[in-house]
């Protein structure tokens, strides 16, 4: 994996995932390691994403690296009309690694083709956000003790949610069963169902959310956003349907954990937060370890 960019979850194999998760476990035990001493990491956020940026910044700081960059495009030369290619070719001169977030899809792939240093994609539009997927995998493995043979519930916006799509691709390597819970307008796209059919994996689709989670190992919640609906009436009808409430946890398995890529709006009631099954805040912390593992692995430091 050394010097290999991480652009898409499809770039890594099952062995690559497992190696990263193994490393993440090491960083969780011992987060402050001076592996990036003397290294400079460029953090280029062409669109703001405070949460992801803070997580990467923390990972880099805990590894003892230095950070250059910007947190939104208006403070970069992009606002003067510089092309992405030129920005990347310039910054690649200065840094040992580039972490980038960009609103356009495919931007990270393009960057990886023009850069002499590896690129980590921290999100390219609605396309890919592979470090999120790896932290999700780490959270699942950590809470379940395994990634194999789990029953995964994916809830909310399954049509546009890139985290959901990438997680599905990754978990398909581990014989998962999937339950898709969404309003009809935001159903999982056919191409993913075909993908699961080809792999011979089981999946079930639901439009009702109550009373179906008794055999769930992981419930992965996502936000149903108003702007995804062509008909505002449809949104009004479903906006409160895909909300996880405390009483819905009754009768679920003890090992079941609730994940969410955050930020949450109203799709998980706040009274769920104190449940032992709520795992979304520890999940965010796992993101730091997963990103430390990815950086160390790509730079060949581990």
């Amino acid at each position, binding site marked *: 994996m050394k010097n290999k960019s991480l652009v898409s979850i*499809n770039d890594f194999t099952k062995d690559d995932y497992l190696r990263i998760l193994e490393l993440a476990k090491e960083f969780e035990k011992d987060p402050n390691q001076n592996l990036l001493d003397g290294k400079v990491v460029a953090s280029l956020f062409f669109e703001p994403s405070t949460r992801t940026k803070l997580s990467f910044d923390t990972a880099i700081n805990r590894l003892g690296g230095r950070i250059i960059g910007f947190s939104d495009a208006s403070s970069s030369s992009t606002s003067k009309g510089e092309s992405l*290619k030129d920005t990347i070719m310039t910054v690649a001169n200065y840094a040992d690694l580039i972490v980038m977030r*960009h609103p*356009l*899809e*495919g*931007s990270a792939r393009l960057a990886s083709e023009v850069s002499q240093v590896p690129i980590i994609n921290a999100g390219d*539009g609605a*396309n890919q956000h592979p470090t999120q997927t790896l932290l999700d995998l780490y959270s699942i493995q950590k809470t379940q003790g395994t990634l194999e043979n789990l029953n995964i519930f994916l809830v909310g916006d399954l049509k546009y949610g890139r985290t959901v799509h990438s997680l599905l691709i990754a978990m398909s390597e581990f014989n998962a069963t999937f339950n898709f819970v969404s309003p009809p307008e935001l159903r999982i796209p056919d191409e993913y169902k075909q993908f699961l059919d080809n792999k011979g994996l089981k999946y079930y689709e639901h439009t009702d959310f109550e009373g179906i989670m008794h055999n769930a190992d992981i419930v992965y919640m996502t936000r149903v956003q108003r702007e995804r609906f062509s008909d505002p009436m449809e949104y009004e009808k479903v906006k409160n349907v895909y909300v996880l409430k405390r009483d819905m946890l009754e009768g679920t398995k003890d090992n079941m954990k609730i994940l969410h890529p955050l930020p949450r709006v109203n799709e998980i009631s706040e009274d769920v937060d104190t449940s032992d099954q709520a795992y979304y805040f520890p999940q965010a912390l796992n993101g730091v370890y997963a990103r430390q593992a990815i950086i160390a692995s790509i730079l060949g430091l581990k």
Partner: protein
Amino acid sequence: MKNEKKQLLVSALENGTVIDHIPAKSLFKVISILGLDHVDNQMTLGGNLNSQRYGKKAIIKISEKFFEQDDINKIALVAPEAKLNVIRHYEVVEKKEVQVPAEIAGIAKCVNPKCITNHQNVTTKFAVIPKDEISLKCHYCEKITDQEHLELL
């Protein structure tokens, strides 16, 4: 009378290439992909000709022009069943078929409005997904452009 008609449609070519079995609606796309709208060679185009196989087909006859296999494969998107006859001294000396390439670059436009290739100066690149109707998976944004949304550059 019959002969005269035939001559009008398909005048004899001394040296060059005949591209036959082009779906009628794809004639101008083939011309554009092969860049025939920018050459000085003599050319005869036949459009909406009756064909037993397609209903309507098109044909291009171009003088003193010979194509490499790579060039021919570029028209796989719009005329996968086209046949090329290479003519020398009025004789067909070689027949070539279109082979669907695994990858194409710089011919088609990605359907995704948020794809980087639609905003910056980047040559498009696609993996070709061979099915009944070819579709393209963008190398950059990973979205699929199907035949219905196919737009050539």
